[in-house]
């Protein structure tokens, strides 16, 4: 189930297979990834994420105003000069939005990757090694899972606010906190898969040939989990970005930096909603929703790519498949005739 390639092959071979005539060696074999069924959903989600990333990293190069450049007073309405007006400190909303999106994405990348790494490490160790180690690791995981993450996040970030270590006060510190609190989901999912991979024959072969446990984990177990790890990573990215904005909205973000949550925090603090200054709160809201939707949509479409049982045949594809089968059957029949004539 975890093997991407075998799934792809299963998805490809349907109906009676005609004996393939030896083709002229004009084209190379289709690379494996081409046989993955990337649906339109995947491209939509990739498109959303790409646009937002461009906005965050390339946008500031072309935009005339900086995020720390005072260009007006509180909540100036949108004008030709400032398309989305100014926010509560008199900064240009678009400039702040781009800086915020960049910081949120960086934070998500750091925290999400860390969380995925810890989750995969714990899951794979527990699933493969088993025994008391599995019991202990999964015990810890289940306990951490039961305690609401937001509570631990709040408590740690409050403690962090009064530390004197500059590293922990910055974006990296926040990412670290989010990373070390959000791994349990991944660990659980990976453990289940790893323990099923651990019973396969090729693991025995690896053991017999003298491979060490770390080597087996990396070269013989991990590749079979690749699709799960990728999907978990995508989910972790989204949830890390949301966790950061939740904390920032509560006033526990990194003070003095821009982030989508911070923008909302200030918009709420300065009554943007009640005064109808939509340009101050709608842009970060929409970007956050798009980021979150993009990543979740990407995850669910990857799920359909890797897991054909979730996929539903589209009428167009079904018709094409039926045509292919018909063609194959016709070829078979023709060949049968040819053989018959020859005999």
């Amino acid at each position, binding site marked *: 189930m975890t093997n991407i390639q075998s799934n792809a092959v299963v998805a490809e071979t349907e109906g009676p297979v005609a004996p393939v005539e030896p083709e002229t060696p004009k084209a190379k074999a289709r690379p494996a990834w081409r046989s993955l069924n990337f649906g339109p959903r995947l491209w939509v989600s990739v498109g959303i994420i790409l646009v937002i990333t461009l906005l965050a990293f390339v946008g500031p190069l072309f935009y005339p105003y900086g995020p720390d450049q005072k260009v007006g007073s509180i909540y100036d309405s949108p004008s030709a000069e400032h398309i989305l007006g100014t926010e509560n400190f008199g900064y240009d909303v678009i400039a702040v939005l781009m800086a915020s999106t960049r910081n949120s994405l960086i934070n998500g990348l750091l925290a999400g990757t860390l969380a995925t790494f810890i989750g995969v490490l714990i899951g794979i160790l527990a699933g493969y090694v088993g025994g008391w180690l599995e019991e202990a690791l999964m015990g810890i995981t*289940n306990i951490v899972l039961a305690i609401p993450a937001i*509570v631990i996040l*709040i*408590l740690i970030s409050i403690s962090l606010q009064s530390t004197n270590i500059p590293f922990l006060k910055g974006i990296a510190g926040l990412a670290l906190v989010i990373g070390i609190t959000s791994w349990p989901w991944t660990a659980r999912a990976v453990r289940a898969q790893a323990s099923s991979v651990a019973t396969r024959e090729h693991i025995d072969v690896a053991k017999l040939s003298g491979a060490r446990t770390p080597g087996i984990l990396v070269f013989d177990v991990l590749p079979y989990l690749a699709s799960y790890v990728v999907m978990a990573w995508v989910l972790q990215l989204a949830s890390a970005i949301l966790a950061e904005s939740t904390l920032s909205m*509560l006033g526990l973000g990194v003070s003095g930096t821009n982030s989508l949550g911070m923008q909302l925090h200030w918009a709420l603090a300065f009554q943007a*909603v009640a005064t109808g200054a939509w340009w101050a709160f709608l842009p970060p809201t929409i970007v956050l929703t798009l980021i979150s*939707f993009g990543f979740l*949509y990407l995850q669910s479409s990857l*799920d359909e790519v890797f897991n054909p049982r979730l996929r539903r045949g589209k009428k167009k594809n079904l018709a094409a498949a039926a045509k292919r089968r018909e063609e194959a059957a016709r070829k078979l029949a023709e060949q049968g005739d040819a053989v018959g004539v020859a005999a």
Partner: protein
Amino acid sequence: MGLRRYLVSKTAWYLGALLVAVVLNFLLPRLIPGNPVDVIVSQLGRGGMSSEAQAAIYQQFLEQFGLDKPLWDQFWIYVTHALQGNLGLSFSFYPTPVSDLISQSLPFTLVLQIPAIILGWIIGNLLGAVAAYKGGSWDKSVFTTSLVFNSMPYYCLSIILLYGLAVVLGWFPPGGAYSLGNSPEWSWDFFSDALQYWWLPFLSLLLINIGGQAVGMRSMAIYELGSDYVNYSRSLGIGDRKMTGYIFRNAMLPQITGLALSIGTMVGGALITELVFNYPGMGTLLFSAISANDYPIVQAVTLIITVAVLVANYLVEVLYGFIDPRIRAAKSGEK
């Protein structure tokens, strides 16, 4: 036998989780370098509090936490006080006991969250199952809408609803929980007034909970639809109505565990929703406590949230033990 084993092990796990949560709640604030009381009191001093009140707080704190005693004793003091309902005194509303502030805001949170979680779960599961079963454009529209709501952060939907329905259209009052001049009391006037303010935050929580459950249920039901027993029963000519019943019940089981696992997230999201609507529940209390460095309140709110979520999870898991026949049938310990 299987059921008893299941219940015992679940109880043990949740007691363990509770212990860890209480220890974290106690320990994390104490990781702050230096004496936490010094830090907090000096911050208060900047806020223009009289030195007399500062000294009183300092004394009260030293007594309450027993900061001169070893950590182990401090923990016992903390636990015994918490069990007696003594959660300390608030800094920002000195000398109001924290438990008073919490008992004012807890009811608002409860009337908002419990209906939103339960109704969201029921409606979401029905929608997801129907979408999976009907397929086609039904599936497409329900799935995409649910996914949008599911992926939307709670506060984003809240902000959009608040702006659209309350500020622009004026259908609902923009924030708060009751009209100015009204105060919480057991009267019909107050309830009918508060109900108008309740709708909007409730709706935004409900929509997101429905979305999350529908997405999960849909994929569960699609999985079930493709399984062998469904194909077999179909070939036997069993009617659609009966089949949906089977599929629904089988797809339901993981959703019950799913509910247990998502309660924590739902509660966390709802706290921020309150903040957006300025709804005077636990979330708003927590927010104002954080911005005022009112440490006893923060600690008490996080403790109560944790305990509530753990208890809710535990109840759902116990219920699951009674519902899933496999647990009753299991003779030996099965992971």
